[in-house]
């Protein structure tokens, strides 16, 4: 069975939908990789385990998306590890190096709201089996947002220093968070086929959702323009380094059976 059965009637729509799923898979893989870098370095044992667990879940979600993309003749491992950096479709926010705990927490808050929005759209897209997977993942992601919100509140509503650091992290992350909504031809195709909403509407809902978390903490929503490129494969040198490290074991023996 094709991973994108219903869209397959129109090859252009099918290709656009696959592009959309690939973004989801790549976002999850790359942010999962970054979260995993906190293993052993979290501010306390619970947070260390939590971010390691969130990493494990995101990489598991990436794997499930890659498996659907590879259904009917692909290889999920090759999708995850055998592509050149410019073939990855995650937003550049995902690839940024962890720059302090507050930065990782701010990114988590912004991304989890985006992901919930994306999974709700996918759940309602009518595109099985991806829609079923999205319904399952929505239930799992709830805990990530709870963890992120609790830490954000703790940092931003504590001392002045914490508040200042969180605000600075928010300023740094915001332009690339808007880059999550970068539009390509794939979006126009999917909107025309009534499979998903226009990115502008997605962004409005995301904006309202993140404000509900940020504003009660006294944080100021930055007014910056989006920094885009990731959805078209234009990444930063930080991704080149991550890619090199992430694919090292796979490259050492691409034919190995695990």
């Amino acid at each position: 069975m094709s991973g994108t059965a219903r869209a397959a009637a129109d090859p252009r729509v099918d290709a656009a939908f696959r592009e959309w799923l690939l973004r989801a898979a790549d976002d999850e893989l790359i942010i999962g990789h970054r979260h995993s870098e906190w293993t052993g370095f979290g501010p306390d044992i619970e947070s260390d385990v939590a971010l390691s667990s969130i990493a494990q879940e995101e990489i598991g979600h990436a794997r499930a998306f890659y498996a659907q993309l590879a259904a009917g003749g692909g290889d999920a491992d090759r999708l995850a590890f055998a592509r050149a950096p410019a073939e990855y479709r995650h937003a550049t926010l995902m690839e940024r190096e962890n720059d302090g705990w507050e930065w990782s927490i701010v990114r988590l808050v912004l991304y989890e709201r985006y992901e919930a929005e994306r999974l709700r759209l996918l759940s309602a897209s009518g595109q099985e089996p991806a829609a079923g997977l999205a319904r399952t993942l929505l239930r799992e992601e709830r805990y990530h947002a709870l963890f992120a919100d609790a830490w954000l509140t703790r940092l931003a509503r504590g001392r002045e220093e914490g508040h200042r650091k969180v605000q600075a992290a928010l300023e740094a992350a915001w332009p690339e968070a808007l880059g999550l909504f970068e539009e390509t031809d794939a979006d126009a195709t999917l909107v025309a086929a009534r499979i998903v909403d226009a990115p502008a509407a997605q962004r409005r809902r995301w904006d309202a959702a993140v404000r509900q978390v940020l504003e009660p903490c006294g944080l100021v929503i930055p007014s910056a323009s989006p920094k885009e490129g990731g959805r078209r494969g234009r990444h930063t040198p930080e991704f080149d380094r991550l890619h090199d490290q992430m694919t090292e074991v796979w490259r050492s023996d691409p034919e190995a059976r695990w």
Partner: protein
Amino acid sequence: MNGTALEAAVWGVLGSVEDPELPIGIIDLGLVREVRVVDGRVSVRLVPTWTGCPALDVIRTRVREALLALPDVREATVEYTYEEPWTLDRMSARGREQLAVYGLAVPRRRFSEPPVCPYCGSHDVAVDSLFGPTLCRATYLCRSCRNPFERFKPPADPEPSTPPSR
């Protein structure tokens, strides 16, 4: 062995496969969604509790090997399906009992229910971390008997979707 007998044997084998992270069989945990047996070819579809669970591959291998060990099974395929999410309703009463004996608190329907200490039955408990030793467990502290304990953590119920604000 005729088809019905083989199907019964297949279910028997499935009943013997345990989750590697919890003392519970995969049928009692509610992982088995569908079993098909046609001419010695068996296909099993499982519903994962957590999509990122590292035990999924172990379970798949255990199920497949156990099925292939049956003399009349010629082929066995085991796959995970996401048609419907796993919920606590899928866990059997016996499964709950086994987890309780192991010392794990298990919510009745959903995680958001008030937790109960599995040692003294008190509701006066505090969550220590939503992320415990495995993806499906959270850690708590009982303020009554002072014991730390773990509670089974099912995936959460979906949040009611908020209409777009304009």
